């Protein structure tokens, strides 16, 4: 057993905080305005919708699946919302319908993956395209941009003397709420159990199918909520909205320490990773780097996060590698039999 200090130091969240401080210092040297209270509070505002999608995706990834259709779900949901609003429906009623559509699109993913047992990667790659096509069909290339201020303030408005962004409060509220669901409820424990070993979870009486479907509905709903914040912040709804945000969302989740093979991850980690992504992007804007160059850096960050995670789990002695080893043993007998067949059939 290593000492407590070392274990705290090796905690992923600690490393994220260190990284956030380091990038903060770098940004402060680029611009004297970076450390302004107003600027610090406003740092994450443009990425709140990314964070809300990342929270939904976290649920999916912890169960050992992936949902790459969320950005298209966001687009399809907000253009429907915008069309219904433009037809004269009350903005909140239209928003509610938009949310239902987002949840419905998530449900379609969930049924295909949870009930028919199809691979989530292939299904959501398909619906990524299908939903984005759908968004264009609903709102062919135009934008709607006449939303009332009482609605848009939740994406782009401020409180407390024009310094505290309301969107930030929305983000923190969802992080808290979903964090409690993930870390404090039976449903949350189910996600980890399914992500660690789906067969064992099923045998211990967890309603695996229902939970897996629910997870994709949650992911769709969070994309819908992210869409409402998106419309509030940017003031318009377009069919290509958020189409380039998938990299940021996946980076926030993976950088947040959520294990890509399922079974591990925490909500505070994802929130910290989102702050880091927002900070890195804003720092690069201060340094006058183009959007494409920023994407290269975020892409490298995503790859580095996984490599670092692999190295850290190797550096940690004790529990984790041993457990992995035990799980492998069951597989081994089967694999040896299959290997024999392979050797026999190939002269």
């Amino acid at each position, binding site marked *: 057993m290593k000492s407590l200090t070392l274990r705290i130091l090796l905690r992923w969240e600690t490393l994220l905080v260190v990284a956030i401080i380091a990038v903060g210092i770098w940004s402060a040297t680029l611009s004297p305005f970076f450390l302004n209270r107003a600027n610090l509070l406003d740092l994450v505002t443009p990425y709140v919708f990314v964070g809300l999608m990342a929270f939904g995706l976290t649920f999916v990834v912890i169960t050992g699946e992936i949902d790459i259709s969320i950005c298209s779900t966001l687009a399809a949901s907000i253009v429907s919302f915008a069309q219904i609003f433009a037809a004269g429906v009350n903005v909140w009623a239209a928003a509610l319908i938009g949310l239902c559509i987002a949840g419905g699109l998530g449900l379609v993913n969930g049924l295909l993956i949870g009930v028919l047992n199809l691979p989530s990667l292939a299904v959501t*790659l398909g619906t990524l*395209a299908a939903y984005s096509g759908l968004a264009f069909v609903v709102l062919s290339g135009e934008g709607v941009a006449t939303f009332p201020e009482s609605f848009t303030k939740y994406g782009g408005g401020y409180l407390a003397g024009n310094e505290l962004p309301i969107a930030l409060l929305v983000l923190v509220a969802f992080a808290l709420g979903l964090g409690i669901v993930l870390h404090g409820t039976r449903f949350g424990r189910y996600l980890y159990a399914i992500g660690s070993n789906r067969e064992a979870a099923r045998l211990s009486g967890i309603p695996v199918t229902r939970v897996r479907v629910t997870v994709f509905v949650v992911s769709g709903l969070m994309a819908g909520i992210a869409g409402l914040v998106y419309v509030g912040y940017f003031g318009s709804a377009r069919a290509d909205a958020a189409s380039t945000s998938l990299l940021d969302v996946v980076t926030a989740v993976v950088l947040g320490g959520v294990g890509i093979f399922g079974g591990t991850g925490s909500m505070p980690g994802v929130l910290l990773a989102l702050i880091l992504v927002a900070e890195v992007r804003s720092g690069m804007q201060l340094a006058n780097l183009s959007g494409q160059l920023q994407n290269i850096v975020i892409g490298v960050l995503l790859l580095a996060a996984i490599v670092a995670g692999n190295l850290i789990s190797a550096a940690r002695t004790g529990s984790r590698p041993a457990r992995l080893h035990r799980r492998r043993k069951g597989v081994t007998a089967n694999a040896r039999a299959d290997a024999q067949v392979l050797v026999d059939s190939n002269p």
Partner: protein
Amino acid sequence: MIARVRAMRPQELAAAAFRLREIGIVLALLVVIVFFGARASNFLSVSNWQDIAQNVSIVVVVAVGETMVVLTRNIDLSVGSIVGLCGYLVAATLAHHPGVPVEVVALIAMAAGLGLGLINGLLVAVARIPAIIATLATLAIYRGIDAEITGGKNITASQLPDRFLSLAASKPLGFPALAWIALGVAVVGAATLRFVPWARDFYAIGSNPDAARFAGIPAGRRIIIAFALSGALAGLGGFLFASRFPTLDSGAANGFELTVITAVVIGGVNVFGGSGTVLGVVLGAVLVATISNGFTLLRLDEFWKIFFNGFAIVAAVTIDSLVTRRLQEALRRRRAELLVPSPARADA
């Protein structure tokens, strides 16, 4: 008929299922041709078919590489970015050095693609990053590099030598040159996957990675080869793309990976790896390109194609998984029968 199916040995049953898949695509293709032929007057014209053949060719070249990756139970999302980057490289080389032979430029594009694919392979096999995440990141990184090199400018057809521009239009033996190249890639690819031992390993790795390792297959090295080949063929695809669409900017072939993966999945390559044929993928590519062409002739917007591609992926995966499940059940029963002959069979 049913009696014949019952009498089949396991291997024959599996082969029959594959043939059924390929026949299914051909039937779908016939339906599509009749439908668009009736709706769009110029659909059946010779020039339109040459158009389709050229588009199919680019998809086929890239899809053969993608097939190798998918067979190993991985995926390569970065091929669209590799096509774009290598395509720009081809155009930029020819624009600045008009004297370079076209074949050399094609080799440069393939070498560049090979390098980019090698990076993907190393990330997946050595750094142990899941292919979906690794290639999602390199998709953004390669596109970013493309944008940095182009610097917001584009290369137009007028800057390129005629030798290169006439390549796409030339028709040796009455068939577009691009189609000959694609045919060559498909034949070599099919032969490789059928007869070459290291390529057979792709199937073994995809069927059961653990078993492949126990059987002594160097899985990591094979996966690197699959990604490198996918990259090299995407590089060649970039060369063909540049000859077909000679006006290139940093957005060239954006989203092309979706068309390629649709062709691969419709063509019957199992997304869990381990099964699939080049013939199926070629048929899948023809089907996708024909439908896409029909949509254009009917003046349907670009996004209908995107919607169709996505829908087709989901539909193909659903059908595949249902068929596979039935087939596996049948195979298990057949194996059990072979081990313990039932009394009924002994009587007959």
